[in-house]
């Protein structure tokens, strides 16, 4: 789901190599933009025989035929569990498709056994490697790319727009937003930005690639409430000294626990501290590379109990509630990547100070 979500708005054609019907999970639960748009996301409708007999030619031919008719700006082919088990060389298929169609093609070796972080990261990394043009020394002073914006972490509508607005309000020029609200052409110009802001871990790999290609420094953090000011200061420092940095620091103390994507959770923790002196710890249920402490990563239900020892308040998606300790105060914070569309209308815009104050008041009830 991560690959398709990351690339959805860019005019490409995303194809999952999987059985018929498996695309409906993505369309229904992960993609709030599906109903009203025409973005091209398909499935190869893989069958048992095709998988076992290695009928890659059919996959390639079907994708090329669709691309010829629908004329996408690029093609992304993503793997799933059965192709992974069969050893399907997805990147190689991508190269064959690109050669036949002349359309830039990403063959992305996902396997359906990891979270959206993996797919989004790989998709953004492909953009950073191949879709961003060399700026030839051109730099936009105060130019910022926002990396890691998908509905999975920011839902649709105001939260994503507010991130860009928060950056612009601090005097920066938003060159591109990866990848909500920008076109592929906007993203092609990303090399001209002077600094990259990584607002979720999905943008982290891309930031490192852009740093490697163009020397662009990056800053990790989400502009949550009062933390936005500190984050923008970090951006200015990065502009000044050219150094990359993480504006959020993993905290190991405090009796409030936030469960969620690590960058957003740690940024919210910082915002709670600034607003009310609440010490909160970010715990990530994903395969995060940024979460500093191993005890801050939970991959099994049984690990939740250990992670929440001593917690008096837990801020997490409502679907976590059944496994919360009865002694802890539970504050719901819906996360589209976790509960899909169920609580979408309750997803707050965490760039707003009032959202932070609302969480604090709920925690103190």
């Amino acid at each position, binding site marked *: 789901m991560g690959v398709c979500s990351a690339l959805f708005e860019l005019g490409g054609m995303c194809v999952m190599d999987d059985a018929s019907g498996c695309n409906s999970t993505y369309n*229904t639960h992960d993609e709030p933009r599906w109903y009203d748009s025409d973005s*091209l996301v398909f499935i190869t409708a893989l069958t048992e025989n095709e998988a076992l007999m290695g009928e890659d030619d059919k996959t390639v031919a079907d994708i090329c035929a669709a691309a010829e008719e629908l004329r996408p700006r690029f093609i992304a082919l993503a793997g799933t569990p059965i192709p992974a088990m069969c050893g399907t060389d997805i990147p190689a298929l991508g190269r064959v498709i690109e050669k036949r169609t002349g359309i830039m093609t990403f063959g992305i070796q996902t396997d359906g056994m990891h979270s959206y972080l993996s797919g989004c990261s790989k998709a953004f990394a492909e953009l950073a490697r191949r879709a961003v043009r060399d700026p030839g020394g051109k730099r936009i002073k105060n130019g910022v790319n926002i990396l890691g914006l998908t509905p999975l972490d920011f839902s649709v509508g105001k939260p994503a727009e507010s991130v860009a607005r928060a950056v612009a309000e601090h005097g920066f020029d938003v060159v591109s937003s990866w990848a909500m609200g920008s076109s592929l052409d906007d993203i092609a110009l990303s090399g001209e930005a002077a600094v990259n802001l990584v607002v979720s871990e999905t943008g982290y790999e891309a930031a490192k690639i852009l740093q490697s290609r163009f020397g662009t420094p990056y800053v990790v953090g989400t502009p949550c409430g009062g933390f936005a000011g500190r984050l923008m200061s970090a951006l200015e420092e990065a502009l000044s000294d050219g150094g990359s940095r993480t504006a959020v620091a993993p905290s190991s103390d405090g009796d409030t626990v936030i469960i969620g994507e690590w960058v957003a959770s740690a940024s919210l923790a910082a915002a709670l501290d600034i607003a009310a002196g609440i010490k909160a710890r970010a715990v990530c249920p994903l395969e995060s590379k940024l979460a500093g402490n191993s005890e801050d990563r939970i991959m099994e239900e049984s690990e939740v109990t250990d992670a929440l020892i001593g917690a008096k308040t837990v801020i997490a998606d409502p679907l976590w509630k059944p496994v919360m300790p009865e002694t802890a105060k539970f504050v719901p914070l819906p996360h589209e990547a976790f509960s899909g569309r169920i609580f979408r209308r309750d997803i707050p815009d965490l760039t707003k100070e009032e959202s932070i104050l609302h969480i604090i008041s709920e925690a103190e009830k």
Partner: protein
Amino acid sequence: MLRRVNPVSEEGLVVRIGDSSFPPSFRTGLEYAAPARGTWNIVHTGMLIPESHQIFVCAESCLRGVVLTAAEMGAQDRFSMINIRGGNIIDGMEDLIIDGVGEIIAGLKYKPRCFLVYTSCVHHFIGCDLPLVYRTLRERYPEYDFVSCFMNPIMRKSGLTPDQLMRRGLYKPLRETKKDEKRLNIIGNDFATDRTSEIRRIISGAGYSVSEIQDFDRYDGYLSMSEASGNIVFGDAALAGGKDLEKRLGQKLLYLPYSYDYGRIAENYRLLCEHMGCDIPDLSADIEAAEKAVKEAKSVVGDMPVAIDYTMTYKPLGLARFLCERGFNIARVYADGYTADEKDDFERLRALSPGTELWATVEPRMRAAERTYDGKILALGQKAAYFTGTDLFVNVVENGGMYGIDGIRRTAGYMIDAVKHPKEAKSFIQQKGLGCTCVFE
């Protein structure tokens, strides 16, 4: 930014029935999924077994769809999962399932009677020893029933489809018991058969009782379906279940398929009455009521074009033919494939209305095709509503419990209501499992 990709070529995407032969075929390849989500999936259907608990064993990406299906139903307390990671494939899966199920049983805060354990594509590809798994589970936990269920869409062209397997699994816990010769079941439907359907009257008139899985909220009641002497099956997807019960329990299979042809419906009832040892009753009053309702619908719909899709009815060509014979303007039929028993309906419709368009739904170009219709159109089904962009539509899936002559009468009623009460499709058709409990309501 979001952009439309139009226009697309319609060649191979749509065909006039007059230019087509049976079965009409569409190009296969990549597939698209429209956001019409009212049809039930294996989670919804499995939940019909009262006091059952579902355990899905599959990879993270596959789990997401089913866990959120259960959550949207508000039924997550009846749902657990075992997440497959890369290492499990190498190490083998039998212990993972057995130990995982044991861990789930130990941790449950209530005591179900039955576990539906869903294995996935991965298990079939690595040759997981499922008989060993279920044998072990039944030995360790004899107080529970375990049903082998499947979420293996990759096998859909290798024998029974996941939907057929689910409708067979739904009755696996039924067991050998003393038969009640005066009792029948209707099996394999997501929706209970309408109380107004004449089939119920015919059965009760012969001194028989009839049960459906939806009648029971306790497991013991559900198990009492074992006592029936026969099982009535309406849809092709439930045939495998009916055959299984006939073989295992000796319950006579009575296949009485959905139809919009009075002659075929009467033949269904002849078979039913033959089994019950009674004469087929006079159906003329039922037909008269249905025809009256259809006539009223025609007066409301007039010459407005009508589009029909396969999500509303299992026999879209049969319904199209029936309505066309009564003067309706059948503009479009949406389906990706047709069953052999629709051939006569196809030929008749082709003769009556050669301009009727047959559209695919999963073909990739449907993603880019204009989702509008020039003028008003009445859609029968969620996909027809989506693809035509109309707000005049019948929001029914999988026949919605309608059956027989009364089903025709009720369909006409739905058509009238759809024309008189426009509604925005977007608000209705994205809900999964129409008719199930839903947290959005």
